[in-house]
């Protein structure tokens, strides 16, 4: 990527970055809490060293009183360890609770697909609008990021949202946020990803909901992912086995998403995004019960964005939707 692809917002040094979401505010509370606690502990430690160093310096003659007995010593140690453990349990709960909220799978108003690539972020909005190294989102709506990478591991980092998530090839990771403040914020790649790693950065633009809609219509181009996925489904010949033939050699896909699928090896699996992805790229990994493992792999023929679109299409298929299209009531 050339120098021009960097679109840093000009927002100066912020020791505490703008809190652009409620989550960011909560994370900062934890930060300030820990900062206060650490300052206190360091002050006690330094204080003790200075006081001991002065009161018990070698040049101060005279006998020293004996130290406390072993019994008292043990009590101090055990009390200290127990107190600290309790404190840590509290901190563990505090940090863990927020973390679950950030990464947990939950409903969202908008799902944005993000593909990392040496060295740029490719973003696709639900209506098909695409952008690079910039992410436009509306304020006040819940946004789900669905991330992957088409080469090495990258990490999608937005300090203003206190959010970061690795984009791993072959894996979908997610994160949620609700932006609460319009403005422009920094976007980085945080996982070292090769030569131009430091240029893989950009900005996130939080717009009012009206401005976001307006932005979409201004930039909106091309079909939505589900519609694009339908075209891919046909052009790559998936229909040949899954949909058209009277003796379909392959399972129908309408209503598949979220269903429990019985497998050849006797186990079952829930058809989520990862399952659909695996079925496209490594069809032999999970063979559906009652079918031959004849599906070819499409690995190398589809880009990560195209896989996203195919998944979007398959997810959009309602149960029974294909039945009307079928020539006759096919088996299964």
């Amino acid at each position: 990527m050339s120098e021009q692809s960097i679109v840093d917002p000009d927002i100066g040094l912020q020791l505490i970055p703008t809190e652009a979401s409620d989550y960011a505010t909560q994370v900062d509370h934890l930060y300030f809490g820990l900062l206060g606690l650490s300052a206190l502990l360091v002050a006690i430690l330094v204080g003790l060293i200075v006081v001991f160093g002065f009161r018990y310096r070698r040049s101060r003659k005279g006998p020293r009183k004996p130290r406390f007995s072993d019994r008292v010593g043990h009590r101090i140690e055990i009390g200290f360890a127990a107190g600290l453990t309790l404190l840590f349990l509290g901190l563990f709960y505090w940090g863990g609770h927020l973390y679950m909220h950030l990464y947990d799978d939950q409903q969202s108003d908008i799902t944005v697909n993000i593909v990392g690539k040496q060295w740029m972020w490719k973003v696709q909005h639900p209506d098909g609008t695409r952008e690079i190294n910039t992410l436009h989102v509306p304020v006040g709506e819940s946004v789900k990021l669905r991330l992957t990478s088409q080469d090495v591991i990258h990490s999608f980092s937005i300090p203003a949202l206190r959010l970061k998530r690795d984009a791993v090839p072959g894996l979908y990771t997610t994160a949620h946020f609700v932006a609460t403040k319009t403005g422009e914020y920094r976007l980085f790649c945080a996982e070292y990803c090769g030569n131009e790693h430091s240029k893989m950065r950009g900005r996130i633009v939080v717009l009012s909901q009206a401005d976001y809609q307006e932005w979409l219509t201004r930039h909106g181009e091309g079909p939505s992912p589900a519609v694009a996925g339908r075209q891919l489904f046909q052009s790559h010949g998936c229909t040949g086995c899954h949909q058209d033939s009277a003796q379909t050699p392959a399972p129908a896909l309408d209503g598949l998403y979220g269903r429990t699928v019985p497998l050849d090896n006797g186990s079952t699996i829930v058809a989520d995004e990862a399952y659909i992805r695996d079925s496209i790229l490594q069809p032999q990994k999970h063979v559906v019960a009652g079918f031959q493992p004849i599906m070819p792999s499409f690995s190398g023929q589809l880009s990560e964005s195209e896989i996203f679109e195919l998944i979007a299409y398959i997810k959009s298929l309602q149960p029974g939707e294909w039945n009307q299209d079928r020539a006759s009531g096919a088996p299964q």
Partner: protein
Amino acid sequence: MTVASHPENHHREHDYPEHYLSSNWTLRGWLLTVDHKRIAWLYTVSITGFFFLGGIAALLIRLELITAPGDLLSAKVYNEMFSLHGIVMVWFFLIPSIPATLGNFLMPMMVGAKDMAFPKLNLLSWYIYTVGGIFTLAAVLAGGVDTGWTFYTPYSSLFSNTSVIAAATGVFVVGFSSILTGLNFMVTTHTMRAPGLTWKRLPLFVWANYATGLIMVLATPVLSVTLLLMGLERGLGIGIFDPALGGDPLLFQHLFWFYSHPAVYIMILPAMGVVSEIIACFSRNPVFGYKGMVLSIAAIALFGFVVWGHHMFVSGQSLYSGILFSFFTFLVAVPSAVKTLNWTATMFRGRIWFSAPMIYALSFLGLFTIGGLTGVFLASLALDVHLHDTYFVTAHFHYIMVGGAVTAYLGGLHFWWPKMTGRMYSELWSKVAALALFIGFNLTFYPQFLLGYSGMPRRYHAYPEAFEFLHVLSSLGAGVLAIGYLLPLAYLAWSLWKGPRAPANPWDAYGLEWRANSPPIEHNFTETPRVTGGPYAYD
């Protein structure tokens, strides 16, 4: 330590005609030596070379980062520099540092033995270290490596166009040296202890190195296998880490950190051992809570094995793994905190002597505490999400590894220097250096905490201009720090020629090593010592 034949050799000025350095001063005498004390020197010289090589890379990094655009080094050279810096500092300096130098010199003496359990194996491990070092150096200097010291896949296995395999081979080889050293420490501690030296009377330095040996033996093979798999993947495309072939890119991280997290304890446990000896001696108090100290060493060594996933909180490992690893990480922080309490309490009602080793030890205490507390920030899951892979992490591990381990190493070197060389060094200069180190260190790395929270990612060769001011501070600090590291090199070297002769026990310290001459004779003791009491029988 109370010793049967009573110690009256304190402060005895004496010329010792024969000692381990004086006889057989030939190339053969050094390169084929099986004397643990000479092997300690071989290591000391080698790791010092690597330390300054890594240091030059660090200075180039800091020079580049003074300005926001990447204008001094190209992106490629910058990436190779931080990789060189990390690889050399971790694998060829920090991991061997205290165990291979001070540990090699002192472990046999502290248990009252003539040598290690396996002297020839000890020499072999230095040769393995050297071969690995030359390998990696050649790779790094001839072709360069740009993967960072962590070699993450699939970047290292499929994408990097640099000498990854050669560099990893060096790291692979050096691992065997680690394993042999660890094995030697364990067997020596088990079988070579002097009569009367029960486990409950062992100095904490011995305990710490014993535990370190255990980690080296148990964890290092995992690293070897991991690097081997990465090399096979790169060379033959076997598909273990490649998702296109059904592999798992995160598997590498699990395997890598399964070794490399315990490796942090390989670096810090011996440092804790050193500091315990120094603080007891210069407070003239027995270590407070000896039993607690030993238990914490054991707890750190064991629980250090179950926290590797805290390097992967944002990686895509399952949420529940994240929660579990966070929980264990908080637990493993407790024993370290207990040790800090005990060191401080050791000073209570003592007679504190601010000699150079003590100043180093107190620096350690301060820097290690800040490193540890910022570790608590990183263990708190939601905060780690924000801080992961930013300069906050860079600052954190430098506080632990450099502020902690390197400072303790220097403290130990100053403490035992008279024993190792038979010479004293300049008191004034050693204190100036310790102070320069403390100030330079904080100026270098404290601003990096601020950079991290404000969002600056690590391993960036160019960055938004807003971060420039803090980077300038950090680079200034690096200059001061560099002086702090060069000074000891100068005055310690000077002491070898001009330093006043050291008595056998210049600090009036307890411990069997102080019963031997300075410098010790070839097999350490003329007569096997007998031990009748616990360690640290000060006052």
